[in-house]
């Protein structure tokens, strides 16, 4: 039961943070490149790696890992925005958005994991 509460609280603030951060970042960018979602996903990928590397488990992991980071990052919006870029034939944006998300995201998760293990 307490785990459900912790995931809920983490999810509540994770979603709000994603909404706020991606809006802030996107507002500073004049182009149609979805930099807001990209930044949020990259930060989240690094931080989740860090938490797991630090051996965070149990209640703290339910709150910060499953709840907050899970909700802070998003896959569906990444896919919707990619599809929209492709449909608008913005191929350079499409490939760089996908490439940056996947390659840098996985790389940052790896770095977070390594750094977390050293802490």
């Amino acid at each position, binding site marked *: 039961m307490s785990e459900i509460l912790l995931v809920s609280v983490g999810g509540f603030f994770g*979603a709000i943070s994603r909404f706020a951060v991606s809006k802030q970042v996107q507002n500073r960018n004049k182009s149609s490149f979805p930099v807001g979602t990209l930044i949020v996903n990259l930060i989240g990928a690094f931080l989740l790696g860090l938490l797991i590397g630090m051996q965070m488990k149990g209640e703290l992991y339910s709150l910060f890992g499953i709840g907050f980071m899970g909700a802070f990052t998003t896959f569906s919006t990444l896919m919707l925005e990619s599809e929209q870029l492709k449909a608008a034939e913005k191929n350079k944006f499409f490939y760089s958005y996908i490439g940056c998300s996947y390659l840098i995201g996985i790389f940052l998760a790896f770095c977070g994991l390594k750094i977390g293990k050293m802490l």
Partner: protein
Amino acid sequence: MLKLVYFFVGLGGVAGSLLRYFLSILTVHFWGKEFPIGTLFINLTGSFLLGWMTNSLVVPKKLHPYLLTALTTGVIGSYTTFSTFCYETVHLFETRKYIFGLLYIVISFFGGLFFVKAGKKIGEIGK
């Protein structure tokens, strides 16, 4: 009042996160931890739902804008996850499951695009 939309997004986030939490427990229970089928299922179904909502609810403005943001950004945005996907990919490679790692990346990418498109097509019919 200006910030009420944030509260709605947060509530959506609670619903999406809990759905993800329960589904991942279920999939681990039935399929084990060999391959991250839970996150894959969540991310692909979420992509479909977001595509569907976009064309059936958001574009025709069927609901109050706050409610639409709560459903799309809040519920579906929090239901799907990118951080877990990245970690699981690293984990597959670190445990030398290279084929599974590559499959995970390829299926989530092409599957995600396919399901967003499929969702949009079906949403187009229903609007």
